[in-house]
């Protein structure tokens, strides 16, 4: 029985196909665009699977469209991260519009979690807006941050206010590298305090799209008391977790537990 895991997020739709034993057969990423269900449908129609499990903010819509099972991103990231790193004790997922911190039990289940509320402060979307304000691409902003000597303090974490603040700093002639560094530092600080609130211990798996940002990884590593592990395919960890949950359900059904 082959399984497709879909993570339908605000910025991207990620897909992972698993074989019976849990081996990854294929993985793919598409932009959510204006119609995330359409992006998801492309993957569903590609075929080669018997079951679909969806996670991400589009999970309920997918459940209605394909009659598939839906699980939360919290569970999906916990499952995916602990499959890649069985020693994981916590997970950090910074996605397009949500940040989640998850503390795991010894057997990889969710012990506690926290997620940002309504606003997008400190998420991938925040970084996109700031990069634009600085005239950088996301990659350039990360590189600039790594090249900076010290960070400039950014006082606002509200996306709209921070954007004005960054624009003001640019107009004042401040070094864009220092501003980039300051922005990354402000996100890291916020994320680290969330990790502290759920008493997350290492090893910590840093997943989600923002884990591809080398500057963020460096700052989380510097501030977290414990090992920080970054999966090679950080962005598809949620989709992997969704697929794994289906395999776990099949195993449970088979044993009648």
């Amino acid at each position, binding site marked *: 029985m082959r399984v497709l895991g879909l993570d339908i997020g605000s910025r991207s739709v990620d897909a992972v196909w698993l074989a019976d034993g849990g081996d990854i057969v294929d993985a793919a990423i598409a932009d959510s665009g204006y119609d995330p269900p359409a992006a998801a449908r492309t993957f569903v129609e590609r075929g080669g699977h018997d079951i679909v499990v969806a996670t991400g*903010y589009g999970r*309920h819509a997918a459940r209605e469209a394909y009659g598939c099972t839906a*699980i*939360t*991103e*919290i*569970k999906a990231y916990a499952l995916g991260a602990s499959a890649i790193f069985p020693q994981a004790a916590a997970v950090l997922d910074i996605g397009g519009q*949500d940040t989640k911190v998850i503390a795991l039990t010894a057997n990889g*289940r*969710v*012990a506690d*979690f926290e*997620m940002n*509320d*309504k606003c997008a402060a400190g998420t991938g979307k925040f970084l996109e807006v700031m990069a634009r304000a600085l005239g950088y691409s996301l990659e350039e902003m990360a590189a600039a941050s790594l090249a900076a000597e010290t960070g400039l303090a950014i006082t606002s974490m509200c996306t709209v206010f921070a954007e004005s603040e960054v624009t003001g700093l640019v107009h004042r002639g401040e070094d864009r590298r220092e501003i980039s560094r300051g922005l990354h530092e402000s996100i890291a600080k916020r994320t680290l305090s969330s990790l502290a609130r759920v008493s997350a211990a290492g090893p910590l798996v840093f997943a989600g799209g923002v884990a591809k940002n080398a500057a963020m990884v460096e700052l989380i590593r510097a501030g977290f008391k414990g090992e920080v592990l970054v999966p090679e395919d950080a962005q598809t960890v949620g989709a992997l977790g969704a697929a794994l949950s289906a395999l776990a359900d099949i195993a449970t059904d088979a044993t009648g537990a």
Partner: protein
Amino acid sequence: MSEEAVVDYHPMWAELGLDLPTHDALLGAVGQMYGAAFLKQENRPEGMSYLDFVVSEVHGLRIKELHDFRAQGGKVVGTFCLYVPEEMIRAAGAWSVGLCAGAEFGYDEVEKIMPRNTCALIKSFMGFKLTRVCPYIEESDLVVGETTCDGKKKAYELLGELHNVYVLELPQMKRPEDVAFYREELGELQGKVEELTGNAITAESLRTAIKEVNDKRRALQRIAATRAHSPAPISGKDALLATQVAFYDDVPRYTQMMNALADELEQRVADGVGVAPAGAKRILITGTPMALPNWKLHDIIEKSGGIVVGEEMCTGSRYYDALVPEDGETVEEMLEAISAKYMDINCACFTPNQGRIDDILRMAREVNADGIIDYALNFCTPYQMEAFSVDKAAKDAGVPLLKIDTDYSAEDMGQLSTRVEAFLEMI
């Protein structure tokens, strides 16, 4: 109440001074919310049809009853809080009603006179008053407020400019001198309601009122007890609604109908009939009261596959758990008993407040809860602060707990669903 011809209540609402177009819009919205949250539930107890009817007539037939009662010289007293004893209001021959405070309404008007960062409950009751859409307050000859938090305390000053308001002072601790103080305050309240109605509270009238209100609480206790069984015979939403309606409806009629509902639920328990699938996660909710029509959290939990099996809140166990002793001989003795009973309610406005934490843990055991969701309205400092102690105590006792801070808006529904679903997956 009988279900006969459809009556047009607009003339009555106009007479009350309601803003008719706005009020129509409110009723439309509440009707829609009710349909989506309640009527689509599967396998509901038949006894809920009474509450469906009451809700459909909540601003209609019930208001007509209040209207007629007042036309005959009766007095209506509106309240916002459990610490205003309804026994005393009834004993003076008046009717006690809970006031509108459970929906986001009229905030534009409220924010002209109050800070934006005020809890939803206060903003809501002021919004209902300022936009003239709550017939209950318009039918109230007197509103009895209380000093349970700074926000309400100051809000009653503003409300007092628009309505006849009397404020009962509540102590903040529960030492013997505080209980004695509250007893004195009840004496003041006695004078106030006697003056309003022209009736003295007598030993006989007070004894009758205590018995009637206790009977209402006993019916709610019976309903609550059935929820401890698995599968639960009634949804949390329906049980919450039963408690919410307890603040509005005619007391003897409501008691009779709730006893009939309890009979049905007890039969369901005996037959093993439930409303949630086997294995549905059982949730105890604790925190700030949920005034009608605030059904948001229950709705999210139950649409996510969980079932709410208890509410440690004023629209829940705090309302019906304790009874007033019925053996008092004199008014003096009975007021003493009332003050002792009410001062035993564990509101977060008291310090210290270990009693509330003990209650929560006891309830979690009694209803066989798999987890607790602690609910606080944004800017409701007492409950928001106490959430940390509740969380710690629950975790020490091995019961998972999720803290939720929210308001009456739909803005955070997606985010709340994710958190609630993740909590249900986790436990």
